[in-house]
């Protein structure tokens, strides 16, 4: 895949990394699709059959105005109503940490989709550790940009925590990716290093056979 195929100016670079994973012509459900940027990109550039769920009315209106099949709803409730294995990919981008039950959500993602692409802010990043360890305050930065009292993010995890949950839940990790502060993919050398240096973890997961 070359740079001309995917124009970085169209969408956020970390979303572009997700887009690279998706096979052209596949069926995609974007859970928490925000304003539909990624889905719109996938529909136009990769000819996917795309659907989305989004909680915020603004996001939904913007998505539908783009011509996307997006429904307003609470992902944790609405995902139950999709049939088993009805999508090639289910995407959960930067949303896992806002779920009431992230473990149940992962289960549902893999019930509905053959593969799930999950990205989340890494609470193990060295700056986060520094913030908490030295300053003694909750971290607020570009990927965690809410003060503690008003954050929708209620279930933070580190990359290591995520891997652990997958192991416990019989989830197969097909691909592990580390994303840096600028949204670009960085080499995933070792779990220990990724957990320290990556601001986001990005995973392609499937159900264990």
């Amino acid at each position, binding site marked *: 895949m070359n740079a001309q195929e995917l124009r970085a100016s169209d969408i956020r670079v970390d979303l572009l990394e997700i887009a690279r994973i998706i096979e052209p012509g596949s069926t995609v459900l974007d859970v928490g699709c925000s304003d539909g940027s990624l889905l719109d990109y996938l529909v136009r550039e990769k000819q996917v059959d795309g*659907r989305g769920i989004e909680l915020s*009315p603004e996001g*939904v*209106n913007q*998505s*539908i*105005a*783009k*011509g*996307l*099949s*997006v*429904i*307003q*709803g609470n992902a944790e409730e*609405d995902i139950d*109503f*999709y*049939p088993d294995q*009805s999508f090639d990919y289910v995407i959960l981008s930067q949303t896992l940490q806002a779920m009431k039950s992230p473990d149940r959500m992962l289960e549902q993602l893999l019930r509905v989709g053959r593969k799930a692409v999950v990205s989340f802010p890494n609470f193990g990043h060295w700056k986060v550790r520094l913030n908490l360890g030295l300053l003694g305050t909750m971290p607020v930065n570009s990927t965690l940009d809410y003060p503690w009292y008003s954050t929708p993010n209620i279930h933070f995890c580190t990359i290591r925590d995520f891997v652990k949950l997958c192991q416990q839940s019989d989830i197969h990790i097909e691909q592990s990716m580390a994303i840096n502060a600028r949204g670009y993919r960085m080499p995933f050398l070792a779990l220990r290093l990724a957990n320290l240096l990556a601001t986001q973890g990005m995973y392609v997961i499937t159900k264990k056979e």
Partner: protein
Amino acid sequence: MIMLFFMDQEKSAETEEDSFAEVVTLGQDNPLRLDSGEELGPFDAAYKCWGKLNYDKSNVVLVCHALTGDHYVRGINPITGKRGWWENMIGPGRPVDTDHYYVLAINVLGSCAGTTGPSSINPETGKPYGLDFPVITVGDMVRAQAMLLDYLGIERLFSVIGGSMGGMQVLQWAADFPDRVRTAIAIATTWRHSAQNIAFHEVGRQAIMADANWNHGRYLDQETRPHAGLAVARMAAHITYMSESGLTSRFGRNLQDREKLAFGFDADFQIESYLRHQGISFVDRFDANSYLYITRAMDYYDLSADHDGVLAKAFQGTKTRFCIVSFTSDWLYPTVESRHIVRSLNAVGARVSFADIDADKGHDSFLLEGDDLNDVVRGFLGSESEAMGGALP
């Protein structure tokens, strides 16, 4: 409806106002077979259209109207003298753009604005049908519309759009004629009438039937009409079209043309005066028996009934693309009903968009100008016409 007060602002630089309104007689050879088992035919179907039909007839948008609506969507309504009920949605440059789409609006069966209903003449007796008119359903209304499309040589609809009872017809169209409906836009509606919906309608019907002038539906033979009963029915129904917060912000406890309470039963409060006005102005344009018949059709509406009570089965295998819209303050057909439609569509893998629009005007929000609703409808239709190659018209 509230919107009529706002319509004056609309520019009157319209030239396509007087596009033809037609009435055709259908079912002469093959009568319409009704859900009740009875047959109806011949019957008249009144309709009106705007825009240009393209060469392969692929740009037709059917507009379905609500309980007391009609086919006068745009322009001056000859019955009321007022402007059409959905000018903000349909017209040149509007979300349903008549510069691109050929828009067709048909008066429903049972109504009193041109299509055959209980006030029409029964060809067998030469007198108005009255209660001899058969009880009809939303499914019957849709089948009658399909007969008209057959007559006009229109095989497929680019879209069917409607709010409230219009939305029920939209869903019925998609369920009964999936191959004829490319996209379906159902606004502020439901998939079946709830006990509460039926209850409010029953109050309205009882008010009409309790009026001595109703005379078992035979009032057209006499001088007087059951106007008092019909006005009360309209008043009760009108409350369900508005929200508590909308009423409070518009009327509160404000007094009508007086400084203090009159200690009597005149319209002390503005809301009383407003409702009385709604009731009185309604009786001039609507037939009491039509009100009975159409509310009955809505009460009988349950799209899941023919599918073991499972709504999803009504849409099994559908290729139609859906847009479902609800309003946060609509307590007549609340968001939860639309959400059930959306979940049922998702369960069968249908392509569906769903917006729950934040609005404080209650059920009537679907008739009012609103950027969110406009953007949703415009975006939805635009993307589909683009998907067809942007070849409309």
